[in-house]
């Protein structure tokens, strides 16, 4: 039996996806940044962002999705893990135990009060890691269909 080709190009999905894509990416960032105190966080945000790229894959093709991502998904996993691991270290410089959360407040002129923290850094790492890991799987399967 010949394997079926990956072909589900539809005009509706194609047009719809170009509208949906920016929204999905924005929404994923929204989920990422509200994550610490409210429902959300790096993991869910990462899944939404990965879904955005997967949508591109379905609406157009494998190549378009890869071009949209620009880097190899495994590199994203690497960057994410580096950020997450780095989040563990600042506590050491303040004489606290490894991985202790550090918080910094910055007052910005227009936006007001901005809180930065190592959990945020960790969450961004998780965000990138999840995007990379999910897309590695998706791309591997898509590649198998392609060849």
């Amino acid at each position, binding site marked *: 039996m010949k394997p079926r080709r990956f072909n589900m190009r539809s005009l509706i999905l194609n047009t719809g996806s170009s509208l949906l894509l920016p929204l999905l990416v924005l929404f994923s960032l929204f989920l990422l940044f509200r994550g610490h105190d409210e429902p959300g966080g790096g*993991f869910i945000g990462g899944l939404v962002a990965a879904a955005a790229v997967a949508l591109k894959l379905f609406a157009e093709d494998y190549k378009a999705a890869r071009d949209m991502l620009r880097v190899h998904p495994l590199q994203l996993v690497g960057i994410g893990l580096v950020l997450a691991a780095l989040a563990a270290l600042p506590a050491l410089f303040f004489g606290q135990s490894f991985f202790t959360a550090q918080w910094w407040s910055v007052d910005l002129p227009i936006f007001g009060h901005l809180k930065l923290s190592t959990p945020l850094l960790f969450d961004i790492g998780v965000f990138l890691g999840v995007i990379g*890991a*999910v897309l590695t*799987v998706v791309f*591997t*399967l898509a590649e*198998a269909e392609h060849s």
Partner: protein
Amino acid sequence: MTTLMAILIGTFYAAAIYMMLRRSVVKLVIGLILLSNAANLLIFTVAGLERGTPPLIPKGQDVIVGAAADPLAQAVILTSIVIGFGVLAFAVVLIHRACEVVQTDDMNEMKGTD
């Protein structure tokens, strides 16, 4: 409710083991998925079933008032779901590749390394 859950979990384990004993690799994967779900449900149940009582500390207090769901069990389940998801995603890719290389999904024909 707990009894019902116990029966459900038992059914999950039984179904998982039945699926894993089949010859088809695809059914093996389904069995593994069921197995990890069964374990997660088990943790969920043994930690105590609480309904509609999120473990939130009310404003102006320092500790939780009254009975509340156990947040640690939920964190554990969430973690193991995520891990299970990652590992199974990998297993699916592996089995896809394996079926391509071996040209069969029948476990009985994968005896080359025994």
